[in-house]
């Protein structure tokens, strides 16, 4: 395999794993606080459409990305209101958020279907980007890639070493004890959910600002759900999210490159690959009996302080 082809494949794998990393790292933080938000797909779609619109009018990728973040946070706030404010079942509230986001993003973006804009520029780091073989691959990405890696590093540090991270984990594992110790359970969970929404929104914005140069309804195509699976696959450990996302990115790219590689399978079978891989990954992970998994003990359970 020529190095040009290899580099092209590697670059596309990285590109398709970035939205998964972004959405999954946000959901990971929310889940570590005990909030299972199944609305990732809906938040991503809203981030995608609002990001596109913001960038289209401002001409700035950065402003577009910020619009995406804001849209994701607004959706997350809605979820927080339902689950933390009204103690609604988290699974049902998350599903509602996804259905709502699918419809609303279609409504908001109706007039923007078919419009195009230039993708986010790829950064050129002097010296590093010119390294042979790996230079273009590792140091020639767009800004989102660096933000994604930075977020993972930040979250890993935050959860492990910071006081607030310790509180967040306590709330996710035993909200009653955390409450008894005087921690604001609802407040901490709301912040975690909002962070998850911001990341999902940014992930959606990446799809319309860098991955494809346009908006089309439902363009996230289940990536929000794969991000949710990725959190489980990563056993709630931040750096494993990156590993998992590259694996899933690879499955997506295999589907695109199959023709070039001479694999003759129906296109639908290749399109189903990422979903099948997700299921297989979950099976393999559970076969290992969850050794060392950091599953939050109170994940998905509502908490109402009765005293």
């Amino acid at each position, binding site marked *: 395999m020529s190095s040009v082809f290899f580099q092209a494949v590697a670059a596309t794998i990285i590109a398709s794993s970035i939205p998964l990393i972004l959405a999954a790292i946000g959901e990971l933080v929310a889940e570590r606080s005990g909030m299972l938000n199944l609305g990732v797909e809906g938040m991503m779609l809203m981030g995608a459409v609002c990001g596109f619109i913001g960038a289209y009018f401002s001409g700035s990728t950065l402003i577009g990305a910020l619009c995406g973040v804001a849209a994701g946070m607004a959706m997350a706030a809605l979820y927080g209101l339902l689950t933390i404010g009204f103690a609604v079942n988290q699974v049902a509230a998350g599903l509602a*958020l996804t*259905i*709502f986001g699918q419809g609303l993003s*279609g409504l908001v973006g109706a007039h923007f279907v078919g419009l195009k804009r230039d993708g986010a520029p790829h950064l050129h780091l002097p010296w590093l980007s010119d390294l042979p073989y790996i230079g273009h691959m590792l140091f020639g990405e767009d800004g989102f890639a660096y933000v994604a890696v930075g977020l993972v590093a930040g979250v890993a540090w935050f959860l492990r070493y910071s006081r607030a991270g310790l509180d967040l984990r306590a709330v996710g594992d035993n909200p009653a004890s955390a409450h008894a110790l005087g921690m604001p359970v609802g407040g901490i969970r709301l912040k975690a959910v909002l962070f998850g929404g911001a990341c999902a929104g940014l992930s959606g914005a990446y799809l319309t600002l860098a991955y494809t140069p346009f908006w089309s309804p439902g363009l996230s195509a289940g990536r929000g759900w794969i991000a949710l699976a990725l959190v489980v696959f990563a056993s709630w450990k931040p750096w494993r999210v990156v590993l998992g996302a590259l694996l899933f990115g690879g499955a997506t790219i295999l589907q695109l490159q199959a023709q070039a590689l001479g694999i003759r399978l129906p296109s*639908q079978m290749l399109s189903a690959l990422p*979903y*099948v891989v997700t299921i297989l990954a979950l099976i393999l992970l*559970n076969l290992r009996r969850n050794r060392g998994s950091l599953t939050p003990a109170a994940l998905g359970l509502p908490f109402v302080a009765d005293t």
Partner: protein
Amino acid sequence: MSVSPWRFKLVTRANPSRALVLLAPVLAVALALVFGALMILALGKSPLQAFDVYFAQPLADPFSLAEIVVKASPLVMIALGLAFCYRANLWNIGAEGQFVIGGTLGGGIAVATHGMTHMTFWILPTMLVVGMVGGALYALIPAVLKVTLGVSEILVSLMLVYVAQLNLDYLVRGPWRDPKGFNFPVTAGFDTAATLPPLWPGGAVHSGVAITVLLVIIMAVVLARTRFGFAVRTAGLAPRAAGFAGFEHRRLTLALFALSGGLAGLAGVVEVSGVINQLQPSISPGYGFAAIIVAFLGRLSPVGILVAGLVLALTYIGGEAAQIAMKLPLDLTTAFQGVVLMCVLAADVLTHYRLTIARRAS
């Protein structure tokens, strides 16, 4: 953070308020209508005109009424099974996939027997059974993975939706495509022997609707009067109590997934043999997901689901009418359905908790 001297507090009710159990969904729909009106205003249209087109006109037109009943049928059938699952805290959210698999397998029999003229009486019953069994087996994949390995049933059942849709897409574009179909991605039209007859001669309502009504009655009796129903009702609240009733949680999980998948599969095959009469790349406008809303709007009870199914079907029919008459996009219907579910869930809190306003301790 908050500086207000007052704060809202949720206090658990010992017993859910009976009046609110009935009132909450009505309040929720009313609230959802307010949000719907705001969305329509934001689109620059008149909410009053939209409500007229969405809700009033379909109810006044006998043809639309028949359409509402036909659309409500799959929603109710799927939601019946989902409600049993959700009561037991089991999250089958892949009913859309089980619906598609049921329609695909049942429809496959219609395709295979196309053109048969003798001994055709067995085709339709076999289609219904195969669709139901297919949906049940498909739902058992996440259930088996959950009880043996502890894999999340939420994620697996959802991933399988995409797989089922792509599988149908492949079949109707490939091996099952009608050779005389001018290259359209559809199978041959079903023969009469593979088509559900209308409820009465010449009627617009197919006989699958009768199956749905029958199922509502059966499921209501099962839930209220049988040991299995008791196990389902208690499983979510007190899993150990369900065990005492003779239903160990793993067995209950398998049974409920098979039940909900079977009903979704049956709904799928009823849809293709009663409404579409052929297979095409997409056989559902999202019934499997809308049925989740129906299940909650109907308060997870069979009779409530019947009413909720009709309400949701009305939004589909009204949405189509509004698209034609007022150029309102179909996404408005999806967004509105999401709002309805959120309002239903939020209103539910009033039945389980008492909202009190307390003075903040200084």
